[in-house]
Structures are given as structure tokens and as C-alpha cells.
């Protein structure tokens, strides 16, 4: 079993403020994750706004420098790659961003975003071959090439534009696609279409997917594994079925209970949980980050940050409620959970 993309104890601290009033924001703290080479898997990363989801994507892409830890692609450190290795990385790791409106240059036709990677990575030897490649990529995700090519971004709907981005990502036959909230800006009905095309892409071409979202329902539907982030830390990780059907961390429980169910006869969650007071933590927290909002907080929770407890074969929870279970180290967490399949 070889690793494709791995993050080891990644920490990112953003500094802000002036010369004298320096303020530090911990966006991510000690996050590890692991995506194996084959078979392709879909990993969902869920968390509220400000939990560090987008920072994680940017670190994995090498867009941001790490404060601590390392990101490895096929065992090679992202920061120490040679030119050729970097080019390979850029080709094999593709990204889909949240906003299908901002990624296009309005002065170019949508063809531009599709032809650029073809030229840049020498995917075709002639114009007609390039055209054929692009048409195939569009058809694979259910777009009609003749209705899409030759148009300007404003002439396409949000859903179409986002699907063109999916086509662009698939064009390079990547090994992995990082999708950062790919459907949060489109309607429910289009959401389904885009996610279905991502899933098909993953199955058909063996592409692994990291699906970043705040929507637990779609994460559950599409993912094999789920990582729950809270204020920059992983609080629960494991098999999607286990995490959603039987959440163990109090935060995951709160998340699952807060989803409005499409059934008027089913009640909406338990009674009121404390209204959140704090936002992103500004200093390294001594205890558990969820302690202020946790209904089951114990003295130990204020003292030391909880380690990961492996509560099931395929699940680990960062919570002292499960201190009976065996402790696993952060960096092996991903691997420990990855025995199946």
C-alpha cells in the first residue's frame, strides 16, 4: 500500500496585527491525513466556517508555507521538490474551487480554461486532437460540447461553469482532485448533478477525491471516510457510515443533530446548545477546544488537549469520553484507519 498524499502533523499559524500588537491565529493545529494510492477513495472534510478547511486545501496544494509539519506527495516533501517533480505534482493533483464565478476571466471564452492545461502539459499533438480531448472530457460529465465551447463565462449558468471546472480537472487525468466546497454556490438540484459527476469521475478513472464541505449530508452521501474539523483540529475521523450514523465526539453529535430533516414530523435536534461565544482561538489552547460548548466537559478537558482514542476499527475520536479505548498517535491516525478496502 503506497501513500499518494499525506499530511503529517500540519500546523499553520497566521500572524496579524501591527508591530507591537501582534496577534496570532491558529488556523490548523496538528492535522494529519492520508490518502492511499489505490483503490481510489473519497474523503470528506467537514467543519463550520473558520474551522480551517480552506487552509488545509491550500497547504495540501503548496500554496501556503507550513508553520510546522510536512506535506508529502508520493513520499516526497512538497517544499523540497525538484522542478520536474513539481510539474508532475501540479498535473496529478487538481483542484476545484468554491466559486464558479471568480475562477473565469470574463474576457476569455470558456475554452481558454480547457485549452491552457492541454498546451501547458503537452496533452495533444495537434489542434484537432486537443479538441477531441476536450470534447470527451465535457461529455464525460454530461455537458454538450457544442453548447459549451465557444461561449463566454457569463453565458453559462453557475452549475455549467462549475461542471466545466470539473471537466478541466479531469482533463489532466489527475490522481487526486481536491474539491473545496464545489457545490456550496449552486442549487440543490444542480448540487446533485455535480456531485454525481465527481463520483463517476472517481470511479471511472480511479481518481481519489478530497471533498471539503460544511454540508454533512452530501459528505455522507459521497465519502468513504470523513474527517471532522473543529477550530483547526481534527476531532473525529473514520468511516463515513460510523461517523454520521453513530457520531461520538460531542461536536459531531451537535452537527448531525442540527441538520434540518426533510420530514415535518421529525423534531429538529435536541434542546438548545449554548450559543457560541468564542471564534477562532488566538493562543494555543491548553485543554480541548470544544470545552466551552461541550455538554459533557470534565475537569481533565480543561487541562490537557485530548489525544486520539481509537474507538472502532475505522474510527478515532479526540475526546476524553472514550479514554478507555487505546490511544493512537496523530501521524499514524490516518494509516491506522486505512486498513480496510
Amino acid at each position, binding site marked *: 500500500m503506497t501513500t499518494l498524499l499525506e499530511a503529517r502533523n500540519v500546523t499553520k499559524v497566521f500572524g496579524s496585527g501591527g508591530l507591537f500588537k501582534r496577534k496570532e491565529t491558529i488556523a490548523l493545529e496538528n492535522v494529519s491525513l492520508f490518502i492511499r494510492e489505490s483503490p481510489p477513495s473519497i474523503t470528506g472534510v467537514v467543519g463550520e466556517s473558520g474551522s480551517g478547511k480552506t487552509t488545509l486545501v491550500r497547504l495540501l496544494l503548496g500554496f501556503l508555507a507550513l508553520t510546522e509539519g510536512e506535506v508529502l506527495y508520493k513520499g516526497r516533501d512538497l517544499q523540497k521538490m525538484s522542478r520536474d517533480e513539481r510539474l508532475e505534482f501540479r498535473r496529478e493533483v487538481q483542484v476545484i474551487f468554491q466559486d464558479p464565478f471568480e475562477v473565469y476571466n470574463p474576457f476569455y471564452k470558456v475554452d481558454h480554461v480547457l485549452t491552457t492545461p492541454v498546451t501547458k502539459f503537452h496533452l495533444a499533438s495537434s489542434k484537432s486532437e486537443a479538441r477531441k480531448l476536450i470534447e470527451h472530457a465535457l461529455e464525460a460529465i454530461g455537458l454538450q460540447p457544442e453548447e459549451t465551447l465557444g461561449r463566454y463565462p457569463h453565458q453559462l449558468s453557475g452549475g455549467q461553469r462549475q461542471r466545466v471546472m470539473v471537466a478541466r480537472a479531469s482533463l489532466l487525468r489527475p490522481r487526486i482532485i481536491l474539491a473545496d466546497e464545489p457545490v456550496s454556490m449552486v442549487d*440543490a438540484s444542480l448540487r446533485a448533478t455535480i456531485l*454525481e459527476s465527481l463520483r463517476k469521475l472517481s470511479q471511472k478513472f480511479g481518481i481519489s477525491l478530497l471533498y471539503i464541505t460544511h454540508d*454533512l*449530508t452530501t459528505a455522507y*452521501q459521497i465519502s468513504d471516510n470523513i474527517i471532522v474539523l473543529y477550530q483547526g483540529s481534527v476531532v473525529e475521523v473514520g468511516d463515513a457510515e460510523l461517523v454520521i450514523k453513530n457520531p461520538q465526539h460531542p461536536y459531531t453529535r*451537535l452537527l448531525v443533530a442540527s441538520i*434540518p*430533516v*426533510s420530514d415535518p414530523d421529525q423534531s429538529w435536534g435536541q434542546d438548545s446548545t449554548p*450559543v457560541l461565544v468564542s471564534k477562532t482561538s488566538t493562543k494555543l489552547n491548553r485543554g480541548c477546544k470544544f470545552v466551552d460548548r461541550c455538554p459533557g466537559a470534565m475537569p481533565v478537558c480543561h487541562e490537557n488537549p485530548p489525544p486520539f482514542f481509537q474507538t472502532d476499527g475505522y474510527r478515532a475520536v479526540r475526546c476524553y469520553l472514550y479514554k478507555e479505548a487505546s490511544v493512537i498517535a496523530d501521524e499514524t491516525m490516518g494509516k491506522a484507519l486505512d486498513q480496510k478496502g
Partner: protein
Amino acid sequence: MTAEVLQVHNLRVYYQTAVGPLKAVDGVTFSLKSGERFGLVGESGSGKSTLAFALMRLTKPPGCIEGGQVLLDGLDLIKLSESEIRKVRLAQIALVPQGAMNSLNPVMRIKDQIIDGIRDHLNEIPRSALEERVHELLKRVELKPEVANMFPHELSGGMKQRVCLAIAISLSPRVIIADEPTSALDVVVQRQVMLTLGQVQESLGASVLLVGHDMGLMAQFVGRIGVLYAGKLAEVSSVREVFKEPLHPYTQLLIACPPSLKEKGEFKGIPGLPPLLLNPPSGCAFHPRCPQAMSRCSVEVPSLKEVYPGRWVGCHLYTEVKR
């Protein structure tokens, strides 16, 4: 039977474009009972926000209210002059806007923003009484009194939305229009904000018109629902009946759409694309995407009929209830 607070009759809102009018809201009729929670759903571009704004007479050019009536306790808001409608807004019909992030003035303290609206309506209230009012309003939306002296950037998204809610209820309106109030918030905060909205509405005895596209949220919050498609109402029913047995084919697809936590399955989207309102399909606007379309559907526009008591559907599959 409670009285109807808001009655909307055949409301039409068009946007004037170079190639002709775009019918964003085209003959919408519904009513809101006193103390009722009514949901208005539809996909983007179905005209739901245009409709919400038109009810407040906030339609801006090139948009224009072409015709129809909006009766608030019998008073036709469409006929009022600009200065008369100003007195009605906030005092009797208030809006909770979609993007709480962008709705507050970044350089004004929260208390001043709340007072601003109250002052416009009741200008002879002394400052001390106003400050007291602000505290009471903040308490109502479950915010601490310290928030009064803060600026918007010091608040989280959920807290900002609560401030918007406090502004909306500052003069105890009869109707609160909430235009996707939680679409920018995560599920935990969404639930808290919606619970607060529900409590505040009940204590005021106001009616709420909730605009949105999240069927789950609708199922949990509203009593009756109106489904908007291409500027027309496709179905109006109690939410329980809609979820039990959706009648309009569009509603059926809309309910089948959101993935559930119960079981994994294929994602079901609604086939085809939303219609272009500039050049809408002939007959029923949904017929090109409708799995049950008949030849009649492409010719004749279906009218909204009461097919069962209290259930209104605009579709040729159903016939009017016999009385």
C-alpha cells in the same frame, strides 16, 4: 379561522430589458394568516427574492411592479406613495436580509444601527428610552447587552444575523420577511438562529414569510409552503401534506432531490435547466423538464386550482375540487 394579515393578488414584477420585459414574478396569489409561518421555495432565478422585495415595495429599476395587489391588513401597499410606504416598512412589515455579512454598516456601532430605524419612525423618543429598547431587543434575540457597543466586524456570522433580526423586530411588525436568513451560516448556527426567529415571532404574534431553497429547513420551520417556478406558484399546501404527497411534478422532484442521512444512494438532480425567463417555454414553464408532460402542457398555461381543500396546484394533471 384566523384572519389573513397579508394577501397577495396576482402580483406581477417585471424587469425591463432591451429585448422586452422579463417576467420575474408573473401573477402570484397567496395569503398569510396571522401568526403563520409560510415558506416560499424555488431554485435560483425562480423569482423568490424579487417577490420578497416587491412585498416591501423595495423593487429597484429596471425592476417594476407591473400590477396586482399586496394587502397588509386590507391596506394596498402598491398604491401607497413613497412617504406612506416608508411609514409601513419596518413598523408593519420588516425584512431579515439574506447576507447578514453585508447588511450592517461596518463603521456604526450595533446600537446605533438598531436605533436608526426606530428613530425614523418615532423621533420624539428620548435617547435613554432608546438605549433601553436596544437592550431589550438584544435580549430577545439572545445576544449579550455588550453587543450594543460593538462593531459588526467583532461579531460572528450568526451574531450578525441576530442583530439583523433585532432590527427587523424593533417596531413589532405584523409580518417578518426572512430572505434566506441562514444560507451563509453553518448548520449548528442555522438551527440556533431559526429557533430564535421562531420564538421571537411567536412572542410578537407576527407572521413569517421564509424564503429559501432548503426543503429540510422548510420542513422544520414552516406550516404552509408555496413552491415558485419561473415566477409562478406551482403548488401551495400545508408542509405536512407536501412532504407526504407532493402533487406538482416539480415539487415531487424537489422533494426527491436533497440527499438524506438515512441511506446512501445516487444523487438525483432535476433534469434539464431552469427556464430562461426572457423567453419562457410556451404553456406550462415546467413542461420541457416534466416527466409527466402531455401535449396540452406545451400549449396551455395551467392556472392555480384548489384540487383538494386547502391544496392549490398549477398543473394540468389535476382538476378542481368539486364543491
